[in-house]
C-alpha cells in the first residue's frame, strides 16, 4: 500500500489529457475573438492614431482573465490595416492611451475614476460587471447560457468620438428592440 500510493500519484500527474481538437472552445477564447471584432467594427477619430498610425492598442486593466489567449489571437493579425498590440495595467494610475480598454471586474468599482483618467481620449471601454453600462462603460460582455453576448451603451461611445458599425449595434442584446422599432440610437 505504501509503495502503490506514491506511484498512483505519479501516474495521475503524468497522464496526458488529450484535447478533442477544434470542437472545444473556452469562454475567454470567444471573448478574445470579440475584442478582435470590436476593433474591426469601431471607427476611431484620426486623433486616436496621431502618435502611431500603425497600431491599435488593446489594454487590460486589473485581473487578466485572458492570459495568453488574447496575445495569441492578435499575433500577426491586422485590423483596418493596423496591427494589434496588447498592454496590461495593474492599476488605473498606470494607464496610458489604449484604443480598447478591457476593465476587469476587480476594477469596475473605480470606473468613474478610470473614466476621468481617460476622459477626452477615444477609448472603447469593455467590461463584464452587471452595472458596467450604467457607470459609463460602452460595451458589456455577458454570458447567456454558455454563449457570449454583449450590450452596448451607444451614447457613451459617441461622447468619446467613436462610431460603432450598425453590424455591431444590431447584435447588441439591449438594442434589439430599439432597432427593430426603427429608432436608431444616437
Amino acid at each position: 500500500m505504501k509503495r502503490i500510493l506514491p506511484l498512483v500519484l505519479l501516474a495521475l500527474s503524468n497522464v496526458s489529457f488529450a484535447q478533442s481538437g477544434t470542437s472545444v472552445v473556452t469562454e475567454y477564447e470567444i471573448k478574445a475573438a470579440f475584442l478582435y471584432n470590436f476593433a474591426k467594427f469601431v471607427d476611431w477619430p484620426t486623433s486616436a492614431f496621431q502618435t502611431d498610425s500603425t497600431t491599435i492598442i488593446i489594454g487590460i486593466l486589473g485581473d487578466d482573465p485572458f492570459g495568453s489567449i488574447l496575445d495569441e489571437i492578435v499575433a500577426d493579425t491586422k485590423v483596418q490595416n493596423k496591427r494589434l498590440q496588447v498592454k496590461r495595467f495593474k492599476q488605473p494610475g498606470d494607464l496610458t492611451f489604449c484604443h480598447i480598454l478591457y476593465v476587469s471586474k476587480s476594477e469596475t468599482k473605480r470606473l468613474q475614476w478610470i473614466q476621468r483618467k481617460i476622459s477626452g481620449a477615444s477609448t472603447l471601454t469593455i467590461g463584464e460587471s452587471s452595472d458596467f453600462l450604467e457607470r459609463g462603460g460602452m460595451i458589456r460582455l455577458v454570458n447567456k447560457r454558455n454563449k457570449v453576448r454583449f450590450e452596448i451603451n451607444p451614447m457613451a461611445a459617441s461622447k468619446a468620438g467613436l462610431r460603432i458599425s450598425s453590424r455591431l449595434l444590431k447584435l447588441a442584446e439591449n438594442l434589439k428592440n430599439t432597432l427593430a422599432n426603427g429608432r436608431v440610437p444616437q
Partner: protein
Amino acid sequence: MGINNMKHMRGYSKSSRITWSRRDSMLWLFCLLLSTPTLGWSQSRIDSPNSKVLLDIPIEQLVDIEFVTVFKKPGSIMESPAAVYALNNDDIERSGVTNLPDALRMVPGLQVAQHSANSWAVTARGFSGMSRGLSGQFANKLLVLNDGRSIYTPLFSGVSWEAQDFLLDDTERIEVIRGPGATLWGANAVNGVINILSKDSRKTQGLLVTAGSGTEERAFGHLRYGGRLGPNTFYRLYGKYLKLDDLVNNTGASNSDQSDLVRGGFRLDSDLVYSRVMVQGELYNGQLNRSYNTILSQNGPFPQQFSHEDRMRGGHLLTRLQHSFSNSSDLSVQAYYDRVETDEAVVKGYINTYDIEFSHRFDFGNRQEVIWGGGYRVISDHFDSTFAFSLNPAERTTGLANAFLQDEIRIVPRHVSLIIGSKFENSAYAGFQIQPNARVRWTPSPTHTLWAATSRAVRTPSRGEYDARILLQEITSRPDEGSSFLAFTGNDSFRPETLLAFEFGYRGWLAPEFMLDVATFYNRYNSLRTDNLLPLFHNEPIANSPHSFVALMPGNSMEGRTYGVEVAAEWQVSRLWRLRANYSYLKINLALTDGFDNFAKSIAGQSPQHQMMLNSTLNPASHLRTDVRLRYVGGLASPNLPHYITADARVAFDINRQVELSLVGQNLLASRHAESSEVLFFNQDSPLVSRTTASQIQRGVFSKLAWRF
C-alpha cells in the same frame, strides 16, 4: 513498550501495519516533486489550432458558439445550505487584525479567547477546551485547514494557533462553516470547519514590503515578491517576521509571554486552461516564552513556577492538481507533507504527516451533481518522555483512510435542492465510522434562501487520550518516600465522541442594501469525555523516581444538548458607509451518564452565552479609510470571568499610489481585560494547578507601512 507493540491500534489489522523507512520517505518526496509538471512541456495553448480559427468566424455566428465551462465555479455563499460565513481579504485588512484568532472574532458563532500573548482557544458552538491542563488551550471540535492542509494537531486534538503566523496580504479568504462539515472534510469537523485560502500567485505579483511597530505588536515585517515564469505560470516568494510583546497577569506584572516568529515560503500556480497546478511550501521557526506553573522535575517543588523559552519549528510542502475532463466532470488531487517539531518545557517531540486525497465532481443526468473521493493520511510521531509527560509508546505511526460521496439533487431546478452524502473513515483510534449528512435548500426567489440540515459527526480520540501520562497535581507529599500524584492516563478504551446535529437557517436580502443571515442549531452529543478516577487511590510507581501516581482516565460518561442562534446582518447605509452586526446565543446543558466527574459539567460554563459585534466601515475621503469595531463577550461561569466590551479601530491613508500607512488601536476601552484563566482540576475549592498562567489582554496601538511595487 516499544515500537512493535501494536495492541493499542483497534480496528487495525496486522497485515496493514506500517513501518516507515527512510527509503519510503524519499520515494514520497520524489513522487511529490515529479507530480508537478515541468514547465517545459506544459499544455500551452500556442499549439492549439482553435484560437486563430475563431477570427475567421463572422461575429453574427460568434454569438451562437457555446463555450466549455472549465472548473465549475464554487456556488455562492448566499445559496449555501449551511451556516457559512466568509471573511475576504478586504474585510481582514480593514479590521487591522494581525493574527488568525483575532480575525475569527468577526465571525458570528465563533468563540475566541486569548490566553496569553501567543496562545488562544478558538471554538464554535461551545467546548472551547479552556481546561484540562496540558491540553488547556485546545478546542477539540473544530477542524482548521490551510489551503486544504489540516493544521489540527493529532497529539491533543486541537490547533496550535501560535504556530500559524498570518500572511494577511496573501490571504484570499477565510471561510467558516459552523456545524458539522463531516461529509466533505471528515472527522473532527464536529462543531465547524475553518478553511483558510491563500491567494493565487497571479494575484500577488510584484514586490510588497510591509513593516510596522507598536506597543504589543513590537515589530513585524513582511517581504513578498511575485513573478512570472511563462505565459501561464506565476509564483511568489515571501518571508515574514513577527515579534510580540509580553502581556501582564492579573497582578499587573509581566507574564513573560513574549515571542519571535520567522517564516518563509513560496507558492507557484500554473493555469493551463484544462489543468491547474499549485505547489506551495513553507518553513518556520519560532521562540515563544511561556510562564509555567506546573510540575517539571522529580525533585520538586510541585508545582514549580518558571519561565521557559519554548521553541516551535516546522514546514510543509503541498501540491494540488486539478483537471477538467469536460464541462461536467473535473478531478482534483492533492498531496502534502507536513512536519512540526516542538521543544517546550514539558513536551518535546515531532510529528510528520503525509497526506494524499482526491475528489471527482461530475454531473449525473440533468438534475444531479455528484462529488466523491477519498484519501489516505499517515501520521508518524515521536515524543521524549519527561517526568511530567510521556507517551506510551513514545513513537507511533498510524494510518487514516477516508472516502466520501455526496449527491446534490435539483428537485425543482433553481428552487429546491436536496443534498445527501456521507463520509466513511477508518482509523486506528476510532475504527470504522460513518458520518452521514442531509441538507435541503429552498430558494423561493433569487434573493432569499432557506435551508435545513441534519448530520452525524464524530470526534476521534487523540494520541494523547490514548497514550499520554501527564502529571497534574501532587496529592500526598511524603518527603522520605516520594509523593503521590494525580496523573491523566490515556486509555485505549476511550471511544469517539459523537454528535447528531439539526440546523436550520435563512439568508437573504430584505432590501437592496440590507442582508440578513440567521442560523439556528440543536446539537445532541453523546460519549463526551469525562475524566474518572478508577480505581480509587491505587498507586502506581513512576519509573526512575521515588514517586507514584493515581490514574485519572478518560471515559465517555457525559452527554450534552446545546442549542443556539447566530445572526449576521449587513447594511450598506450609503455608498461610503457600511455597517455590520453579529449576535450569537449559546446554551449548553451537560449531564453525566454515570460515574463521578465534578469537573466535566463545568465545561458548560466555559462558553459565553451572548456575544455581539458592531462593525462600521467608512471611506470619508478618497484616500482615507476608517473602521471601528465594538465587541461584547458575555461572562463565563467557570472559570469565573466577567463579561467584557472592547473596541478596535483602524485608520488607513494612501500616501501615494504605492504606499499605504495605517494606524490600529486594539482593546481600546480598558487598559486590560481577561478572556481566560486556567481551570481547576478535580476539586473546585482547592488551589488551582495550571500549566501556564493566563495573561490579561492589554490595550495596544501599532502602525504599519505597506509599499507595493
